[in-house]
């Protein structure tokens, strides 16, 4: 149990760091979803399934979706960072 919690906490903190460090905004959005997923697993371990469900659905699903759609709308959603030139927002 404690080992599972340690693994989840490490994963969550790593994903949170990745959100700050990643250059690609789309990848940072995905990492933010992973943070929410880790927090949801922690809620399950703490016997709070209702809150875990909300966190997984809203934090990992909906907010990631809204952030990604907003990125697409702003023309910032790109899968590759290094290349220059055309704004390919598909």
């Amino acid at each position, binding site marked *: 149990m404690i080992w599972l919690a340690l693994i989840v906490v490490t994963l969550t903190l790593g994903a949170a760091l990745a959100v700050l460090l990643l250059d690609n905004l789309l990848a940072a959005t995905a990492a933010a979803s992973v943070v929410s997923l880790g927090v949801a697993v922690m809620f399950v371990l703490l016997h709070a399934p209702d809150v875990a469900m909300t966190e997984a659905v809203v934090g990992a*699903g909906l907010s990631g979706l809204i952030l990604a*759609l907003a990125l697409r709308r702003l023309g910032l959603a790109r899968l590759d960072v290094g290349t220059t030139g055309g704004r390919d927002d598909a």
Partner: protein
Amino acid sequence: MMRNVTTLLFLGGLGFMLLVITGTLDFGAPPMRIGTQIQQATPGDVGTANIVTAVVLGYRGLDTLGELSILFAAATAGGLVLGSAAARARPDGGFILRAGADLMFPLLLVAGLYIVMHGHLTPGGGFQGGVILAAAFFLPLLARPRTAPGHRWLMWIEGLSGATFIVIGLLALYRGEAFLTPLLDRGTLGELVSGGTLPLLYLAVGLKVGAELAGLLMRLAQDDEVAS
């Protein structure tokens, strides 16, 4: 430089405040005893197997109504900012996305409806299931952008379910009880038809949240000239 110093001062003050608060509190000795009381009173009082639902809709139903209004205001403001731009013809989602959407749509629909309808028995409820329903109805739009469904029926569902929630609350007032008091027979603990009006309230919440968020996501997905 000045900004860094200010930030450091702010962080230091915040840390000091949190340290003082946690230092003065007894860890593991909550000052409120309402939790245990609710756990003892719920099975006979409200009749829902999921105690969280009894709190969310029974004891604190007015808070849920406030939550719904906040969500409504946020979705309305989002729609206002985004505008109802005519959907520009976007390229199709591709075979993988289309096949995946076809496969996922019924599964998401069943999962969302299950979570909404069993909100008073198992963990979950209107909000969680409503978000899943919104995702279910948003997925086909992502796969086939050309067949954009109208916002009109979404608005009708949203308005009617919101009105249902308030009408159920007002019926309790009519019966001479407090606003949003659970009515009807409590039934047997743990059965699908139990808990009085709470399942109906959760159904209204689920439909409202689902329709609202689906509308917001659809607005966000149809892009106008901004993204071109």
